[in-house]
């Protein structure tokens, strides 16, 4: 069974060939190229990976991702972005998925009522056209909902049971103002001691098309690797979603320095020590292969 890293990012220096947005964390001259990733994968026996677009949602911003997918068609699948407020997201999505290796799209807001007790009509949600398009074209939706959108998600999932959904990073829904970058250049999300997502995204386990990444531990934990304070979260997800709907991922490149790619290949064994070999293999790649339809190597 292949070992698949189900969520990470690569990017190259900003250039006319590969234009991208820049920030303090990914300035124009920084690069974390696919070759560097392949080195890490080789060293740690990881066979395939999901490359997730970052640093811009325009078609042009996706050029480096498309380049990587074209160069290594059997190694990677891609997840794209849709510009917020795009007048015709279906066209954007179609252009990016035309035999490119991009299989779906990532976003975090759904554009519905803020009032949790309001009457909901999903057809009026801003994200409805994206979901409709995903349902019609079999795209995967890669979701990292912010806290104010968590209550909208079940309406969309109920409306589109045929859409494969992958909740990123332990299904956490970050709160407004709770995001920062640490001294090692890693995203940090301040979360409450009591895991609020047990009441929202964890409950989505009842929808069979919803899957979850076991990743991003470094961003939520108050401890060093192996992040034992999150063992309960992992057990909760295992109990709710079952072993067949969980996918391991590293969130490369943010983790390269601390704890390092190699250590993260063991994080599931550390946090879910009771798994059988077959169950571990499912989480480490078997599920990603089946759910995301990775090609045979």
């Amino acid at each position: 069974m292949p070992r698949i890293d189900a969520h990470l990012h690569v990017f190259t220096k900003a250039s006319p060939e590969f234009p991208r947005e820049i920030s303090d964390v990914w300035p124009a001259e920084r690069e974390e190229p696919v070759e560097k990733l392949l080195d890490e994968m080789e060293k740690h026996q990881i066979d395939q990976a999901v490359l997730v677009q970052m640093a811009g949602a325009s078609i042009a911003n996706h050029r480096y991702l498309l380049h990587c997918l074209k160069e290594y068609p059997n190694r990677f699948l891609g997840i794209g972005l849709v510009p917020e407020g795009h007048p015709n997201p279906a066209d954007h999505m179609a252009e990016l998925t035309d035999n490119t290796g991009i299989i779906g799209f990532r976003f975090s807001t759904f554009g519905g009522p803020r009032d949790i007790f309001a009457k909901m009509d999903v057809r009026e949600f801003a994200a409805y056209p994206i979901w409709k398009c995903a349902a019609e074209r079999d795209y995967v939706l890669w979701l990292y909902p912010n806290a104010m959108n968590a209550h909208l998600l079940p309406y969309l999932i109920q409306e589109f049971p045929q859409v494969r959904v992958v909740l990123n990073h332990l299904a956490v829904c970050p709160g407004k103002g709770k995001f920062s970058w640490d001294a090692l250049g890693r995203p940090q999300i301040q979360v409450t001691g009591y895991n609020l997502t047990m009441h929202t995204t964890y409950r989505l386990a009842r929808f069979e098309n919803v899957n979850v990444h076991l990743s991003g531990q470094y961003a939520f934990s108050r401890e060093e690797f192996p992040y034992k304070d999150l063992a309960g979260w992992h057990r909760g997800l295992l109990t709710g979603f079952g072993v067949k709907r969980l996918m391991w991922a590293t969130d490369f490149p943010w983790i390269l320095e601390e704890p390092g790619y190699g250590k993260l290949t063991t994080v599931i064994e550390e946090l879910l020590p009771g798994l059988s070999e077959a169950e571990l293999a499912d989480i480490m790649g078997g599920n990603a292969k089946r759910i995301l339809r990775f090609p045979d190597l």
Partner: protein
Amino acid sequence: MIRPAPEEKKQWEEKGYLVFENAIQGEDLKRLQTAFDYWADACKEEWLDRVEAGESVATFYDIPNPLEKDPIFIDIIDYPSYYGALMEFTDHDLILLGPQVRTVAPWPVSYTGWHPDVGHENPLHIKVQIYVNDVELGGGEFGFVPGSHKPDAGPYTRPMRQESMPGHKTFPGKAGTAIMFNSCGWHVSMDNHSDVPRKSIILIYEKRTPGRIGPDQYASISEYCQTPERRKLFSLDG
């Protein structure tokens, strides 16, 4: 104080629950509904801000510190229609752990799995759920597995769907209905397939153990607790 009838005591022992229809009615019910709606509306925006900040649960909403908001929320703690049963079942040694004045969003947002609240090692732990609005079948009504509170019952496991729980009973009811249950028993809010959020109040009690609730917990409402019984119920004298 209305003491439970022998058949009610028998049902409590064997089934682990009692239903008090029209437990609160007339002017008291109107007072309760008015206070609930007023404070739920007044405090909602602050709750939504906390949800947005990732500091509060997004599927249900409890009015904060309700006992300080309106005396009706204090009056229902020892309301005559069910207080006698509470006292009887705890050998007249009852304390309040807390109230939850709660609005729960409809399906598919809100979803609770079947669960007990406490284990059998816990002192007798009782909840009283009061419907503030009418709760129809399929409207988020309370569900309970009769007899599941007994130490030799089960074992039980949480089914994927609420309605699949073996032996369960559901409790639709009119506003003012109170359902008392042993919290060792397996219970749930059934899915609410209406478009009306369910408003209810959950009062949590326990048979007294020393130091369980400190005297400061309810000190802010001590002016409403002048009788020895109330002072004991609210642990105001330690």
